[in-house]
């Protein structure tokens, strides 16, 4: 029973991180209609920026993170303006999807060439060392802190979308981009802001993952896979749904690992994904897609 409880608790903590990485994927999908394959490598790239800043400038984690957040904002805007926005009006959906895939590979290449020698790297945590003991499992302050950050971000974004004019414009753009444009909404500006927010959240995920998973070029590869699963399970357009999806993926994965082995956990996770797609195509929390005919 202790082992089961440990697997569930650890599944929840890692699942929240899957959800957190899935969060910017949903955000961008809502705003642009494109699933961003590059999200994991954006997180890794920006975490390396923080790491290199710490090493080269001799800074501690918090000041370096401050510089990293500013870099994330710039990086998010540049990636969108250079990689996605140019000729976007004449590009179809597949073209945009392939652009995010190209970004994924481009960032992977840059990380490999510039920073990967000698990896993995120990990465400091922004939270205190130590852990709470709960039976067999130790819940580190790092994991508790990550859960807290996820919670704060979820509340902030909920407030943003529900209580601010810009948030409402985001939702309007996501719902009917063409009509929003006709009504004078600057959708390009909004999309740029969405990319900035997505990059900032990605950096936070990277900084939360790196202390336990160690900083490496492929640090987010499996995370991205599980995050996409969380996004689909949650309903692709549902911001709360992505966290629920992440927790489901984390708990199922960890419980199956404990009782059936690491190699069986992927079978369970992706089997569940297929089941949900077949039984409930819009995901557990997504609404059905309606079209006027």
């Amino acid at each position, binding site marked *: 029973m202790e*082992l089961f409880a440990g697997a569930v608790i650890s599944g929840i903590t*890692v699942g929240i991180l899957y959800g957190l990485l899935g969060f910017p994927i949903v955000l961008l999908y809502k705003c642009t209609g494109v699933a961003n394959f590059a999200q994991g490598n954006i997180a890794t790239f920006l975490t390396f920026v923080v790491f290199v800043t710490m090493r080269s400038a001799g800074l501690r984690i918090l000041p370096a993170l401050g510089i990293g957040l500013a870099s994330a904002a710039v990086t998010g805007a540049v990636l969108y303006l250079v990689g996605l926005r140019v000729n976007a009006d004449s590009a179809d959906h597949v073209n945009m999807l392939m652009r995010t895939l190209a970004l994924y590979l481009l960032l992977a290449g840059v990380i490999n060439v510039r920073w990967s*020698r*000698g990896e993995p790297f120990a990465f400091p945590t922004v939270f205190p060392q130590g852990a709470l003991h709960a039976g067999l499992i*130790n819940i580190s302050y790092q994991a508790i802190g990550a859960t807290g950050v996820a919670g704060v971000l979820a509340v902030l974004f909920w407030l943003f979308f529900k209580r601010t004019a810009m948030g409402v414009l985001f939702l309007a753009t996501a719902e009917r981009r063409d009509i929003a444009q006709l009504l004078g909404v600057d959708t390009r500006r909004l999309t740029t802001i969405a990319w900035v927010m997505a990059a900032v959240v990605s950096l936070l995920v990277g900084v939360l993952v790196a202390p336990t998973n160690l900083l490496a*070029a492929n640090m987010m590869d499996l*995370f991205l896979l599980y995050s996409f699963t969380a996004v689909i399970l949650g309903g692709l357009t549902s911001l709360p749904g992505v966290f629920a999806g992440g927790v489901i993926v984390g708990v199922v994965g960890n419980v199956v690992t*404990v009782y059936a082995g690491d*190699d069986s956990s992927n079978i369970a996770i992706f089997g569940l994904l297929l089941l949900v797609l077949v039984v409930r195509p819009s995901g557990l929390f997504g609404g059905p897609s309606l079209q006027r005919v």
Partner: protein
Amino acid sequence: MKRSAPATLLVTLTMLATSGCGLTGATVEKASGPGVTDTQIKIGTTNPLTGPVAASCKPVSDGALAWFNYVNNHGGINGRKIVDQVLDDAFTAPEALSNVRQFVNAGVLAVFGGCGSVQPPAILPELAKKGIPYLFPYASSTTLEASGYKRLFLVLPSYGHQLAGLIKTAMHELGPGSVWFANAQIPGSDQTEQQVRQAVQEAGGTYLGGETTIVGTSDYTPLVLKMKAARPDYVVLSQGAPDAARIVQTMAAQNALPKKRILGQANLATAPFVGSVGDIATGRVLTVSPVELATSEAAASCRKAFAKASPPLTAEGYSLFGCGTAQIMTEALREAGKNLTRERLVQILRSWQAKKASPIFPAVTFGASGNLGVTRMILVEIQGGQLASKGELEIAP
């Protein structure tokens, strides 16, 4: 050395021109074998320069290139310069096979070095079909050891053999105990598990079981909880350096470090592992290294070559392995003399009896048909974030 596309094309064209397609090459073929001209010895290396193990594997080919450059700058081998064409296989068997076909077309003397346990079993049949010698990959595989291909030469025992030797040594020194095994899913991992289980039983210990893991697993907590519940005296790791480091980090976070030691194969005697686990590993990890440690006197020649490399290389487990195998290679080429062919090279290697071909490798003996040339490794522990030698141990093939 990672080459740009135009550079690769240039090298390939040059190799084609001198390996039988061109007049010069055709003339040279009569005097020497494929890949050998009056001025050059051409060999090929397929190695992950990108992908999940690139950070560990690239230093292997960099270390070898540093030694070859050092030798070339001091006159080469019997008047010839060594040209090692390194192609990226991204840790995938299809890419490695494609690289080997390029080497076949280019007519290299041998395929040398490289790193990774996934690609070598895949490229071996192609090399065997063409009769191309395959020398000293950083690959640990019972499949390779038992291949029977007489032109395959290994200086790294399989992970199973490494761990069996280590388990017996550890239990001899620290007493028998219970063992839990975290085994990465790579070709030959089933045999590794059998060898570990057998070694534990032979050493008087108890095999508690373990887990086969996926390379790059995102969360090792459930695995470690399972390990913790089993309360082992020893935890045995057959993992790449990054995953081993992640597992040990998670063990520390979950207060699941074993009562006696963590035992791991050669990947733990490298900078990526030691650098990322820090003090956690001090006094808790026993591992093995195929080569003498970076700080040893034996590694002086490699350190000298690394200092002259551009950019300078760090001497550690992977880069030293590359340098050491390049030293064995240059020694074999030197002994093969002016009339260098694939047959002659194989003949020289087969003739060696306890040959000290590199200052950092144990003496090498291949005999008439064996693939593995070494039966000893360096026993290593980690103290204060540094590797410390504890002498040699026997690795029974």
